[in-house]
């Protein structure tokens, strides 16, 4: 389903506008940390209604072909990810903005597409960089592919999950969401923390 607001002439302001101005890296050298802003995502908060968790799982399975995770994990395919967001709660992250109305039968759905600013972080030093603020263990043994967590970094709440399928000793790729209003502060921390690797 296409975003109904796409016909507007109003322009949508990226959460990273005026913030992610230039790449912090020196193009000539390989980067320790790569940062990509994820734009245009559709994000929805989903909470099962009382007694409807199983039905919701079934609906998600049917409609998206994905299994709703019941532990802190992200279950994804190319177009969608269902990320655990607390007991009975998920974030649905769609590569493109779309309607989530279908799920409203069984769940409280709240659009969060504009409320979250998303980054994809990768590179050989991505864990070193995240360790400068992230209070959870991102070692592959503790945070394998598909693991997800809500936590805070540098006093900013984040939702992050591992999206790569890399073997144990390969650098990982993380998707990370922060509140839109704090994107600039998050970047101030992230760019300072990555600086020594770029």
């Amino acid at each position: 389903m296409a975003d109904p607001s796409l016909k507007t002439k109003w322009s949508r302001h990226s959460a990273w506008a005026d913030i992610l101005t230039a790449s912090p890296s020196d193009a000539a050298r390989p980067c320790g940390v790569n940062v990509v802003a994820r734009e245009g995502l559709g994000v929805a908060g989903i909470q099962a209604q009382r007694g409807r968790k199983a039905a919701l799982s079934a609906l998600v399975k049917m409609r998206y072909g994905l299994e709703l995770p019941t532990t802190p994990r992200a279950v994804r395919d190319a177009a969608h990810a269902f990320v655990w967001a607390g007991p009975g709660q998920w974030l649905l992250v769609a590569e493109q903005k779309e309607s989530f109305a279908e799920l409203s039968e069984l769940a409280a759905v709240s659009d969060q597409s504009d409320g979250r600013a998303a980054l994809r972080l990768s590179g050989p030093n991505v864990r070193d960089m995240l360790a400068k603020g992230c209070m959870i263990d991102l070692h592959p043994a503790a945070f394998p592919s598909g693991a997800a967590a809500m936590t805070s970094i540098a006093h900013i709440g984040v939702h992050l999950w591992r999206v790569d399928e890399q073997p144990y000793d390969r650098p990982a790729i993380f998707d990370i969401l922060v509140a839109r209003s704090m994107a600039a502060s998050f970047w101030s921390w992230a760019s300072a923390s990555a600086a020594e690797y770029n």
Partner: protein
Amino acid sequence: MANATQPFRLPQIGLVDRNAPLTFRFDGQALSGFRGDTLASALLANGARLIGRSFKYHRPRGLLTAGPEEPNGLVELRTGARREPNTRATVAELYDGLEATSQNRWPSLGFDLLSINALFAPALMAGFYYKTFMWPASFWERLYEPAIRRAAGLGRAANAEDPDTYEKAFAFCDILVIGGGPAGLSAALAAGRAGARVILCDDDFALGGRLLSERREIDGLPASQWLARTIAELESFPDIRVMRRTTIFGVYDHGVYGALERVADHVMAPAPHQPRQRAWRIVAKRAILAAGAIERPTVFGGNDTPGVMLAGAVRTYVNRFGVAPGREAAIFTAGDDGWNTARDLAAAGVKIVAVVDSREQVDPNLRTLCEGFGAPLYAGASVFGASGGKSLRRLAIREANGSVRTLACDLLTVSNGWNPTIHLASHQGHRPVWNAAIHAFVAGDLPDGMRVAGSAAGRFSLREALLDGAQLGAEAAQDCGLATKQSAPAPATDPEAVAVAPVSRVAGSRGKAFVDYQNDVTDRDIELAAQEGFRSVEHLKRYTTLGMATDQGKTSNLAGLAIMAELTGKTIAETGVTMFRPPYAPVAIGALAGHHRGQDFRPVRLAPTHQWSKELGAVFVESGLWRRAQYYPQPGENDWLTTVNRETLAVRGGVGVCDVSTLGKIDIQGADALTLLERVYINNWSNLPIGKARYGVMLREDGFVMDDGTASRLGETHFLMTTTTANAVKIMQHLEFCLQVLWPTLDVQIASVSEQWAQMAIAGPRSRDLLRAVIDEEHDISDDAFPYLAARMVSVGGGVEARLFRVSFSGERAYELAVPAGYGDALARALMAAGRPFGVTPYGLEAMGVMRIEKGHVAGGELNGQTTARDLGLARMMSGRKDFIGRVMAGRPALVEPDRPILAGFKPVDRAQRLRAGAHFLGLGRSADLDNDEGYMTSVAYSPNLGHWIGLGLIKRGAERIGERVRAYDPVRNGDVEVEICNALFLDVEGARLRG
């Protein structure tokens, strides 16, 4: 043996890199050293012995140790904004261009006027200040205290903004190994071989611990080979992190360890993007404390004379740094270990002038060794006086038979046994226990997950260090669920003797005998403390300041309490030891703050229209974490009041727009959503139709007002609640508590959508006209279709979903229009473009505040956590038909006392006078004292509509006193204004403007 510029540098010996000469300055004098030196070793190499002055008596002091326990050798390192006072020369790594200055002396290190204190020393006994300086009382602040302060302190802080940056970091492991000496290295190796995730930290820049300082063999080869091999193997494991220059400074609950990594302290200035230091929070399942041991001095007269040094430190200077701390050395030892120093000094070519062994029985082998030095051995003897002022010259020795002799020398090495470094084992309040066999305290109960290995466990031989490490490393790996392979046989070590019969103090000393060097605590001070009743070790510490200096008594505590034990006739075990506290070694405040300083102290929250406001020249104000537009000055307006008046009048006269995105917005859905609202708000919700909003007030459980805001019914079981900006997070948490804990059976789902929606207030008589121009045509917003308090989904800009609410804070016809935050900027611009014909004016928080005060709406000033709904004139809202949070407690006698201050309006009687929030109300003609205090002004504004200042306030029986005059008394701003009490509604009493 001399090197032209470093006369005390030994040829060939040591680990410094002779191919990397470095230059540095001490007190302005250019000196040189090598890479691998510490400032201390380089100073000694250059023949510098006087390094600093003591705290109280300003006595000349030299180096006592070679490690972090150093009490004397403190300097100001670096210059300008990078100056670091009290830096221990013994751990400061030498770098090219280093500058250090001696401290706590005036005018110079060699000639210090305050050394005159030493003359008064007889009066300046422990705690003398408690007994005097009481008369006249006012002289304390004016005279005595400033003098004491100037004399006290040690180094001078830069007190300029620190130019360097810091980082924090978090690390996780199975096993944390604290200390990279033989015990720690073998522990890490055993754990690593078992596949554990290991972090090995060492304070030093080189791994090896005491092995770097000793001439030892492992498996028949120099220990350095074992060291190199072990380090190489450790570094080959991907899951072992070896952290040099990293001190574990504290042990916290549940396996959390604080560590400080000195990333760039060994260079002139950090590289760009490099932090100076990094503070780590390490989370470990298991920890092995392999922190080694600290040597203890003996207390005797003149023991602080520069040139008196600990024997182990002397070996460090000789063997590791290739420096001879003197040319003619006497050895004073209470055990076998002092003899190692004699042997190593002799091997390095230093002349041994005498060995004084306090034990009567000295092993014949050692006697033979002494003969080899060509030096006399005094067994059962002691050194009871050392003298020479700024540098040791002479010793007074009392022999076993009581005869006294003097001896010339420039170095005295003191060996009195070692204390295990167990500070970290005690950080959680576990008391160490006395081990009489080694005459030292060892760790007792341990923090969960910690074990102690090697010297730190009081097992002082190299063999034991290697054995303990290998065993505890393997056990810790097993505890983490890892299988360990058959361990390799422990490496063989050369023989060593570690017997010792410690001497805490030498009786009948000549001259002052220091226990705590840095704080100038002598054995006499301890005697005085005992005499005056300060006999518990904690009293002793606090009364004499023993162990309270920058070294925290690492070398001195034991001697102090041994003397107290002797004076009170108790054992040391009964006497006990003072509490060890973090940090193990002092930690820079900047490191623990990390990134969070200046603008990064706390995150900033920016509204979706921030950029737009900025372009309009808004002046921003901090409001919680948000940065909000306060007002929008235009050219020519040079005070804020002019701007705010213009904005206010523009709204009341036409239309204004204001970002209100910062309000908390909570989406509430579910079959029982209405029930939730009924239980958390004081007023009634059951009759709220779909498509309508209502104002609500919430109480805390104690009956005081918590928050207010509107909630809108978007569907049968779907509501949107707004909260004040300040309470957004708190209310969400409150609702989660209600739903998860108080009423878990309710079928309600809540989600914060505060970030999702940008929201603009559009207020003023022309607001509907303006809206008409931005809202898509198909939506009817006529007053019939969209009356006051309507709430509905609409669309704007040709299909952008939006929510429209007809609510008003300003008292004007007003709307709030919400769009997804990505369109917030576009919305603001569209409103401005469409509003040009109506003279649309952006307004900020100030104008909003003026208008709400004109309408008597309560906000932060009134919702201060001390007011009840009744105080705020909202008692009528409290439903009597239902239960809600806070209902019962709001009925307590004190909350319904008729005399409580109640909300009212206030106008200056002389309309030209200004009002101020915070003024207290006094009856006219009443004196300014507490008995006449009737309440206070909560908020004020200049009303451009009325042409004078107005205020809201809480005053006793306010509602009954309309028309009465009182004083608004504000002495802290020299204010005393006569005001009239009026209705807290200054404008449009009938509400005609609100409805159009």
